[in-house]
């Protein structure tokens, strides 16, 4: 009998090209996604070596980070961003890499377009020069972020040198209470294990609550694996996964589809397989989650107060919290509910898919956002934008007083002009509340699309459960 293996171990084992003693494994990469920010120096490296892109047919590029989310018929005003976008176009042309450019109908955040095209498939290895590549793990894919040197390695050889990570099982059991969504689950987990808790590990999310989630919600969970320190987070493929992929433009078709599905069915973790670590979360006890500090681990149930630094067990943690609260200008012991806000951002690779926009729209329908608050709704891709418009979500958002924008990363990373002013408070559906992440001096509260929409309407942090 063969040894019981985890989902991760099956995919890892199936992608080892060679593994010499005292060396990392050479891992074959099935799909490489590329964007404008972390690739220019890698393409330049290829040029300097006189190398080619080894497998352009396993590579796909798009623009998402530096591009404006305003009228696409206008040129990019920021000359440095324009040059970076142009450089990607030149690189894709010179090296034969397919590019989903602005207006192609498929442009979008890399982690939104891979799944929607059906390119992100169970059992494959997938990398991108971007830490939120963990998103794709929702399909039972081994997907993780890499640096630019590694981008060059994969472009040149379709392979990557890797040491085998450890495994970490995160079980979510129970039924989701009203108003609790995937974002609350993952924020609760990160608050529990800390932002370095998963370092060196691959997370596998399991349990009845995970099984009950739709694919887009699973992507929200896997997306934030890196905020718990884990480079990858995975969920075993099941009927939900297979239904989602059926008929997608780049998913296997016909007899290939049947064979692929048979392969995917063998991927889930075997009974009795061992993990290096385990944690579990009782979903039925969760409240909507919100962060108060400057890293995603600084989160609490929304009805709780800002924590006291002196209550933390370790001096380094108290110091970090004190610094975070000074940056956030929040007082320990004060409630978060009712804290006034200036901006709401609904978007990012965590929460910019159709179901996220539907959640936000369900609250905004027939209501107005607070006149004191600027609300940006940024779909994750041109495809999401099209679908949302076909369902009249655009009308809902605009009638409520929110801005409906073009697809991109936007205020998640504030590279494109969509940014907070110094001192502004923002409830954001993105994944990072680091100092300055949404604009220099800006202050971020991370939360779900429901909490974001509820807070937009009241102009202050709001418990969505009071509106359901």
């Amino acid at each position, binding site marked *: 009998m063969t040894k019981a293996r985890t989902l991760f171990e099956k995919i890892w084992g*199936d992608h080892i*090209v*060679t593994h010499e003693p*005292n060396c*990392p494994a*050479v891992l*074959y990469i*099935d*799909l490489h996604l590329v964007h404008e*920010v*972390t690739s*220019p*120096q890698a393409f*330049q490296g290829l040029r300097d070596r006189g190398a080619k892109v080894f497998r*352009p*047919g*396993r*590579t796909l590029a798009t623009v998402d*980070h*530096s591009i404006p989310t305003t009228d696409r018929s206008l040129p990019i005003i*920021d000359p*440095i*961003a324009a*040059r970076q976008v142009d*450089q990607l176009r030149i690189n894709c042309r010179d090296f034969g890499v*397919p590019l989903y450019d602005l207006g192609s109908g498929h442009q979008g955040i890399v982690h939104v377009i891979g799944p929607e095209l059906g*390119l992100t498939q169970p059992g*494959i290895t997938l990398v991108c*020069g971007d*830490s939120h590549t963990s998103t794709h793990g929702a399909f039972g894919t081994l997907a993780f*972020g*890499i*640096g*630019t*040197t*590694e981008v060059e*390695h994969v472009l*040149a*050889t379709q*392979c990557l*040198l890797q*040491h085998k*990570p450890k495994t970490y099982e995160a079980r979510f059991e129970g039924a989701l209470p009203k108003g609790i969504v995937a974002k609350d689950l993952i924020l609760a987990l990160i608050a529990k294990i800390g*932002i*370095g808790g998963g*370092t*060196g590990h691959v997370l596998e999310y399991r349990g009845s609550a995970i099984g009950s989630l739709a694919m887009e919600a699973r992507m929200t969970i896997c997306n934030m694996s*890196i905020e718990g320190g884990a*480079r990858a987070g995975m969920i075993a493929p099941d009927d939900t996964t297979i239904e989602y992929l059926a008929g997608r433009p*780049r998913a296997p078709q016909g007899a290939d589809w049947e064979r692929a599905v048979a392969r995917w069915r063998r991927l889930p973790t075997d009974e009795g397989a061992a993990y290096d670590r385990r944690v579990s979360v009782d979903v039925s006890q969760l409240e909507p989650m919100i962060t108060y500090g400057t*890293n995603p681990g600084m989160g609490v149930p929304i009805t709780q107060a800002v924590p006291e630094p002196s209550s933390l067990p370790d001096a*380094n943690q108290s*110091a*970090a919290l004190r610094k975070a609260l000074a940056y956030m200008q929040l007082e320990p012991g004060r409630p978060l509910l009712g804290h006034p806000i200036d901006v709401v951002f609904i978007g990012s690779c965590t929460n910019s898919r159709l179901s996220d926009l539907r959640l936000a729209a369900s609250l905004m329908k027939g209501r107005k956002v607070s006149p004191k608050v600027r609300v940006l709704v940024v779909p994750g891709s041109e495809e999401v934008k099209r679908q949302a418009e076909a369902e009249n979500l655009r009308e809902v958002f605009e009638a409520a007083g929110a801005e409906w924008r073009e697809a991109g990363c936007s205020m998640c990373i504030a*590279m494109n002009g969509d940014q907070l002013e110094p001192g502004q408070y923002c409830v954001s559906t993105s994944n*990072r509340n680091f*100092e*300055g992440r949404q604009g*220099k*001096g800006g202050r971020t509260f991370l939360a779900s699309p429901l909490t974001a929409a509820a807070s937009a309407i009241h102009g202050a942090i709001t418990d969505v459960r009071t509106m359901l």
Partner: protein
Amino acid sequence: MEPITAFSGRMVALPMRDIDTDQIIPARFLKTIDKEGLGEDLFHDWRYDSQGRPKPDFILNQPSAEGAAILLAGDNFGCGSSREHAPWALMAFGFRAVVSTSFGDIFRNNSLKNGLLPIIVDETTHSKMLALVEKDGSAEAKVDLPEQLLRIPGGPEVSFSIDAFSKKCLTAGLDQLGYIRRQEAAIAAYEQTHPANIHTL
């Protein structure tokens, strides 16, 4: 890459835990298409005021930081974004090693590929080093990569671990891509037995 063997250098302490790569180099400086000039924007928003003037109380603006080669950082240094601009910026400033009790995985990987040594020490050693730097800002530590030793003045020799492959590449100045490219036959054999499952073209 230049081979790395042993070097000595002054230490600078940034003991705060969980310093993310967005602090090391803020995103708005990632619009560059090369690696030039990143040292000036290292820790930009901690280092300069809103007028772009150096903040005198920030450690990297103090005379002791000039020419420093070793950054003594708090736990989980380099968490967050995968931007390789973080080690590029640290190296452009002059750092050759970062010492902490742990690192973000991607930052650690990126650093090793660029010749910035991420050295993990235990908490006791870390506290000793912090105390030493606090007492004497000009204290120099010596890093000996072949021996995997960190020598702290007035303190013990501390051995650190590094995977054998990275050590070999760094001490010989070898590029890791060269190693993968030499596996050409194995890659071809792998592709033979694993027909293309993904088509982007």
